């Protein structure tokens, strides 16, 4: 067994993470209610879908440009978790939901999520498999497809969650041009400014990952949010100690992380 560079630290950090998660789970299960601030974008989801219901027009959703085989797969996963909630709301309000995919591997998953959500609400007859669309693996072919859906189907709301690249602004501008309520969420730092300038609500960075847990009342979900806060405080302390150590000429924290 040969540890990889930084592997020992990563392994113990992972164990610590799991231990903190377990501790948080026990605490939440025991009745502890942690305080979480409201995320406006999540309130905006109901507003966006409600508006589409009032206007009798569809909602558009895209889980972004990433699949499940890259380092940014977490964003796609978080987007699909939120899709389950969005599809449920659409089924409740009898709103048509259009989903646009770039990665073929995401296509069957999104189709099944939407189908199950409509089935759970007893509205399977409203589910159309052809509303869950795969366009192309090519970035701008996919972008053209999404812009075509927003303009051609006259959508009332445009929800973009996941990993995005240069196409993000094309989607957001198309949605703004056609007067859509727009909700975006990504941890791609280069695309956040585009979304902030063009969308009504934005889930910035970790808010995308926290969204699923906030939407849930399940203790296991709530405990992961609590774990994220504890880990964040620990990381800030580690960064502060590292900065102090570096100021006094010591690279002890750097060496520890590289082990």
């Amino acid at each position, binding site marked *: *067994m*040969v*540890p*990889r560079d930084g592997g*020992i630290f*990563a*392994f113990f950090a*992972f164990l610590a*993470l799991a231990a903190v*998660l377990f501790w948080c789970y026990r605490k939440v299960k025991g009745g502890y209610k942690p305080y979480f601030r409201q995320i406006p974008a999540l309130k905006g989801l109901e507003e966006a879908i409600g508006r589409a219901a009032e206007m009798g027009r569809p909602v558009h959703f895209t889980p972004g440009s990433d*699949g499940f*085989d890259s380092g*940014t797969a*977490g964003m796609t*996963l978080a987007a699909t*978790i939120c899709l*389950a*909630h969005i*599809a449920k709301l659409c089924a409740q309000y009898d709103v048509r939901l259009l989903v646009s995919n770039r990665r*073929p*591997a995401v*296509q*069957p*998953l999104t189709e099944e*999520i*939407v189908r*199950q959500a*409509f089935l*759970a609400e007893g509205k399977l007859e409203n589910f159309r*498999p*052809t509303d*869950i*669309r*795969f*366009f192309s*693996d*090519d970035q*701008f*072919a996919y972008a*053209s497809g999404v812009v075509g859906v927003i303009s051609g189907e006259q959508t009332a709301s445009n929800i973009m969650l996941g990993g995005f690249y*240069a196409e993000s*602004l094309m989607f957001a*501008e198309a949605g*703004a041009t056609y007067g859509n309520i727009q909700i975006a969420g990504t*941890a791609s*730092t280069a695309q956040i400014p585009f979304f*902030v300038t*063009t969308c009504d609500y934005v889930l*910035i*960075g*970790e808010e*995308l*990952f926290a969204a*699923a847990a906030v939407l849930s009342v399940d203790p296991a*979900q709530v405990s*992961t*949010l609590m774990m*994220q806060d504890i*880990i*964040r405080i620990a990381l800030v302390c580690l960064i502060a100690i590292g900065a102090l150590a570096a100021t006094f000429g010591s690279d002890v924290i750097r060496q520890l992380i590289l082990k």
Partner: protein
Amino acid sequence: MNTLIAIVGLVAGVPILLSSFAEIPVISDLAQEFQRWGIILAGFSTFLGVLNLTFVNANALRRRKHTGQVIEPVVVLVMLWGLVLTGVFFGQTHPAYDFVFENVLKPLSASGFSMLAFFIASAAYRAFRVRNVDAAILLVCGCLVMLANIPFGEQLWSDLPFVSDWIMRIINGSAMKGIVIGGAIGAIATALKVLVGVERSHLRG
């Protein structure tokens, strides 16, 4: 069924996770094997994607309200299946395959990318309207950074590149690093939730 999927996820995920910490012969081989299975599954899903594209466009063709709506789905179907059949029967080095790639796909992609300039201008106009204090700060910082990036910016004010660099490196950089760290913690938490089966909403809708 969902429990079975969660178990499969756990069994496939743990070796891949362990192999990222250390090179353990059996575990690493297993992780590589699972990654190969992932590639095979991705191949199948590509086929499903092509079928979906065909059904959606065939549907659009069937439900057309006037003849103008025929062009788009016909072009997609002809190009899609034309390229698939050319690639399958004559290989990807066939001149027809190259012709479409070089003379259709590449120019269209370049056009798509170049359109971003117009979208950026329109988004900048919307963002730079001074409606509140935040928008005013954004406007001032944006103007300083843009001026520093044009050839005569430095001639207007010699310290402009320094100010721009300070805004990008200190203010923008620290905010971005905060977002990146938060995003990484969130991604790890999501992965952990899926791995241990706490998160199953993506399996049941």
